[in-house]
């Protein structure tokens, strides 16, 4: 079970979205981290055959996926970032439709749809029209369709975006359950999600893989460290300009800053344990603030 991408490149007119990427995915969960425009979605869309690469190849167990055509799509599950729905279908209709569409024989479709409803906790909402579903329920329906064909490759693009904390935890557990004996590639902005789900993490920047490895490996290889500093309130702005500040806690007469730096930034700074968020900030710098909607920095 091996998904290999070789020299994978995608150009859109004058922009290179993905640039000569090489990687081999084996069974397990892979987290793809990167800022907006890093090329994550483009990479995923090439892996799902939605986009043709400009150059390079994608192979599954040595076979070119373009040549495999629908045989490759049979082992594929995909939950896109903008997961669309058929508004007038009920959840059950939707799964009963997706089952034959994904090549499941009609005699098995119903049982498989039932199983997916149970797995995602949607059994009691089966008769609800999809337009009436909440964001979390839509995502659950999305993951149900993605795994209804028991895929060998599961691609999840921002699966937890827009979910409340309890839905996110539920979703994370669900993905962890699904992770056995398949390649799961998920992209997210939420560092804690990747940390809790992914065995391997890929940091993507400007269309390239800049760092790969387990969470521990990335932390170990991060050149920066996290320092906790007590700073007078009036110096906070200067510190923000001078250092990469991952958090600011304002007190009565001073502020506690967490600064990323290779060296001790100021006397009295206390070295703290490096986290994956520090790695992310260290790798992407100021641009990571572009999408700090989930407290990445």
């Amino acid at each position, binding site marked *: 079970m091996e998904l290999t991408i070789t020299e994978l490149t995608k150009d*859109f007119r004058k922009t290179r979205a993905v640039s000569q990427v090489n990687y081999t995915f084996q069974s397990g969960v892979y987290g793809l981290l990167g800022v907006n425009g890093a090329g994550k979605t*483009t990479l995923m*869309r090439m892996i*799902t*055959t*939605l*986009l*043709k690469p400009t150059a390079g190849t994608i192979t599954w167990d040595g076979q070119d996926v373009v040549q495999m055509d*629908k045989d490759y*799509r*049979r082992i*594929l599950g*995909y*939950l*896109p970032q*903008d*997961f*669309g*729905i*058929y*508004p*007038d*279908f009920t959840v059950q*209709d939707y799964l*009963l*439709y*997706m089952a*034959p*569409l*994904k*090549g499941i024989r*009609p005699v098995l479709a119903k049982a498989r749809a039932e199983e997916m409803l149970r797995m995602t906790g949607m059994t009691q909402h089966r008769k609800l029209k999809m337009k009436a579903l909440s964001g979390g329920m839509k995502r659950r329906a*999305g993951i149900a*369709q*993605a795994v209804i*064909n028991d895929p060998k490759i599961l691609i999840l693009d921002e699966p937890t975006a827009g979910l409340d904390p309890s839905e996110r935890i539920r979703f994370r557990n669900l993905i962890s359950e699904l992770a056995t004996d398949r390649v799961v590639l998920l992209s997210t902005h939420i560092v804690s999600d990747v940390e809790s789900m992914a065995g391997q993490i890929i940091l993507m920047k400007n269309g390239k893989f800049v760092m790969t490895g387990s969470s521990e490996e990335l932390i170990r290889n991060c050149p920066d460290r996290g320092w906790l500093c007590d700073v007078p309130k009036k110096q906070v702005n200067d510190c923000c300009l001078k250092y990469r500040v991952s958090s600011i806690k304002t007190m009565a007469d001073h502020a506690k800053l967490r600064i990323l730096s290779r060296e001790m930034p100021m006397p009295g700074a206390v070295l703290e344990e490096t986290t994956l968020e520090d790695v992310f900030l260290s790798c992407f710098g100021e641009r990571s603030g572009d999408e700090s909607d989930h407290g990445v920095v």
Partner: protein
Amino acid sequence: MSLMGFEWKKVVTKRANQILLILLAVLVAYSCSRAVRQVEWMDGSGNAVNGHAAAVKLRREKEQWTGVLDQTTLEKALAHLREIYSTTPQDLQQGENNWPLRSRLQGIQDIADLLGLAFADTYDTFEEMVEKLQPEDLSRFYEKRVEALSVQFFEEGNWGYANYTENEKQYIVEQYQSARTPFAVGYQEGWVQVTEQLPSLMKYALILLSFLLAGIFSDEFSWKTDAVYYNTYYGRTKSTIAKLWIGFLAITVIYWLCVGVFSLVVLGSLGTEGAAQTLQSDASYWSTRYNMTFLQYYLLTVGSGYCGFLFVGYLVMWISAKTRSPILAVLIPSLLLLIPMFLHEIYSLFLRKVIGLLPHWLLDIPQAMHYVYLYQVGGQVTSLISIILPLYSCLTLLLVFLCYREYRYKQIA
């Protein structure tokens, strides 16, 4: 439920499509009422009756003239016309108060019109013809018809037809000569109304249907379901074929329901008599070169309309699959159908021949019957209708293939 069942469900559960179906029903109801009300009967005092009641009275009036338009019938008709004109006071023959004359002519109006057209070159007015035409002249009725039509055709040459080749001119005259004579005449209002009103119904129904068809492919994009749809096992193959079948089914069901209900109501109300009558027995088809009965004409109109629906339907689907825009998908074919309506004043023969190949003719056979569009294929002169039916049947098949190809290899960025 099969993939086709789900594709059908996508179409019929969409609220906009349900509204479209209601609008289509309203359109059919309006068209039926309009067509039936076109038939008018008037009594001697000028009181008009419309619709089914008028059809009943008119049918009764025309009953005695039903049959073949041979020498005997023509002589009888001429005598009857003379009697009408001689017994109707002069001041009630012309102007707005000519109801008594109009009322008495209703039963024989079709034959009177044909006589007037055949002998128009000899007499200045219809009244003069009725007065002076000799029974022995009537033996030349069909001969005069060919003469009159040939003269009319070559006179039309003054504003654009002059460039017809000798082959084409000969073809036209032969077409006029080959009309089956004597004509069968009689009451045929049901067939006249059903064929004359069908084109309007077809055009508006097709525009409404286009909105429904435009969604079959482009809704996957507007619902943002495309990314999941395209990476499924059958998304690019079997399901695309299911969509094409759904398009075919929607076109077929809606077309035949609209045309069927309309025809049933109009023919049911106005009568089916006259199916075997010669098309040219109605004065408005006097100059047509297509020799057929009213039933054949009706079948040609609905058959050609179906061909037009299929072509425009698949064109809409292809544009929507290509551009992902339902608006554009509806707009382009609608323009294709409506623009030629404004191009009647084009005198260039070449341009007229090009316009003659546009698909709007498929939906407007009654108009196509009147136009002289001739084409030479392999040295053989042929008419517009003989060209557009096979042409658009082939183009429809091509569009089906293009639709499939478009979805088979679509990329989703």
